[in-house]
């Protein structure tokens, strides 16, 4: 694949290439600059920010803002820091991602390998769910959560995110499994494997790339969600994003910008981490359908 890419790309002269690199470098800097400012300011004492230059490097290096953001800053009315909300988010994201991915995989499996009436219509409806704006479901969802007794809890949020995630995860897995040879399923049937055995022993082990794609997609979406979090889980059950907002809003008197910066980075850290760890597989997984291995 490497060589094919090289032979296909247009040959460029040295000067042109210099400009290209310069442009890329500037673009990278442009995107990195806000992060850089957040990072430098999160390790400054507050005085350096309010009294001086946001752009300058810290004169005194301190991790106090990070400690405060994590464990002692005022979030809402409680001086708890972001820590409990971080764990709220984890408790919400992990099951929601897991369940929606598994259900998406099952849906994709059923939709591509088992023929039944109205399967295309069903898939169409699921696809449709990807395009429904969040705002539209807020009120019906609140009602349902109320009926189920899940309002304001992490379980309620898990349910919301699973329901919302299934459309996308089904789409991913359906398209991936559509290219998966049906003869393998038939061979497994003849070998005596039943519905779930085929899924677990034949389909899932070959689904690595698409699982990564799905997990990254769901993880970032669910972790970064603010609307559902704010609507269905305020107070001590709130997820990280909502807590960050509360942290920034609630500081009475002085605005502790350094603590806010540290908190914002903390809130972004898990998604960053997921991209760094699994990003390569993400690109590979997205390409998996188009390039024959």
């Amino acid at each position, binding site marked *: 694949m490497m060589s094919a890419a090289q032979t296909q790309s247009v040959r460029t002269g040295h000067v042109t290439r210099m400009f290209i690199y310069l442009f890329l470098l500037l673009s990278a800097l442009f995107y990195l600059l806000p992060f850089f400012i957040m990072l430098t300011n999160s390790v400054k004492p507050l005085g350096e920010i309010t009294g001086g230059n946001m752009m300058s490097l810290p004169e005194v290096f301190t991790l106090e803002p990070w400690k405060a953001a994590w464990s002692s800053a005022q979030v809402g009315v409680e001086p708890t820091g972001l820590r409990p909300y971080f764990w709220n988010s984890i408790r919400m994201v992990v099951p929601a991602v897991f369940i929606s991915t598994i259900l998406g995989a099952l849906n994709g499996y059923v939709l591509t390998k088992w023929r039944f009436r109205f399967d295309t219509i069903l898939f169409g409806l699921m696809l449709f769910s990807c395009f429904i704006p969040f705002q539209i479901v807020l009120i019906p969802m609140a009602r349902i959560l109320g009926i189920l007794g899940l309002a304001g809890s992490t379980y309620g949020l898990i349910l919301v995110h699973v329901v919302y995630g299934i459309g996308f995860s089904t789409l991913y897995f359906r398209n991936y499994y559509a290219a998966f040879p049906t*003869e*393998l399923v*038939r*061979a497994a049937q003849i070998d005596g494997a039943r519905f779930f055995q085929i899924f677990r022993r034949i389909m899932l082990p070959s689904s690595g790339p698409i699982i990564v794609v799905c997990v990254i997609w769901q993880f970032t979406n669910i972790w970064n969600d603010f609307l559902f979090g704010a609507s269905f889980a305020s107070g001590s059950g709130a997820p990280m994003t909502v807590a960050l907002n509360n942290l920034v809003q609630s500081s009475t008197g002085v605005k502790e910008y350094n603590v806010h910066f540290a908190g914002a980075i903390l809130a972004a850290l898990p998604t960053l981490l997921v991209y760094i760890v699994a990003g390569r597989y993400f690109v590979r997984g997205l390409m998996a359908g188009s390039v024959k291995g």
Partner: protein
Amino acid sequence: MGFLDIRNVTKSYGRVEVLHRVDISVEEGEFLVLVGPSGCGKSTLLNMIAGLEDISSGDIAINGRVVNGVHPSNRNIAMVFQSYALYPNMTVGQNITFGLEMHGVPRPEREKAMKEVAELLQIGQLLDRKPGQLSGGQRQRVAMGRALVRNPDVFLFDEPLSNLDAKLRVNMRTEIKKLHEKLKTTIVYVTHDQIEAMTLSTRIAVMYQGHVQQLGAPKEIYDTPANLFVATFMGSPAMNIIPAQVVMQDDRPHARVTTRDGSHAMLPFSQANLAAWDGRDILLGIRPEAITDPDGADRKSDNIVALGNHIGLTEPAGSDTFVTMTLGGRDTIARMRADVSVSPGDRFEFAVNMDKAIAFDPGTEDRIGP
């Protein structure tokens, strides 16, 4: 009642009937080949035997038991697919024993069965590899190993050789035949390749447009095809089909055909019953190998007829030379010895073995009996 009975089986997808009343009875140990052009319903029929497709009407019985509605794994069949369908995430060994594992066979027995099969197919050194690391021929062997290990009543093959290159295909064909002679298991084998059908089978079912056109031994199919489709589908180059008229001469039915210069030639039939067709148009069927040079003619035949005609093209093919001429307005191919001396445009005395000639009703396209 046979070992594998297909009784009046039809298959419909929605309103479209793709298989019409198929009736085939296979004896134990037979090698039945389903042959026909793409889309004629071979795979559909095979999948119904396997239980991978529902039967719309009719019955399929294996070893005396009607298996309609029985799960594929409980029919005691094994199948080899065109794409081999090896599980990519499992090693060769796991691929072979997966079926046994699913049937709850204990590990020591599975290992033993796997060793035997690996020995039989000479794939012992591959057992720890993944299918992705195998060549096409090796994958083919593993796929057969997976089928063999279950010791099934019936083997089903769906175009197992069509993904192999020409040379390997011939080798594997021989191996499958040897395997059948050794194991004597009943086999149903699907292919679109008429040579595979002829070489492998004990019986052939020629299929076209969802109908079984003819069911019979290879020689029967080849020598007395039931209709024009079977006649032209089986054999390469295809049987020559020449418009002709039946004319009685010396109390014997003859085929009157037109040569290239517009004159008529009279070819006496060996079949007396064609007298009933006196004066009517027929289609004369002669295989290329029944038209030769006089020296190359079949000495056992007592009905070799000389036919003078102009030579069209000559195509030396190594072992044979194919010579074309125009007969009844159609290009007609003769198969001659490689060293025959012929040149295009010359007039030549062809020797036609009329013992092998058959006639078709141009209306129904069926062969005119007996």
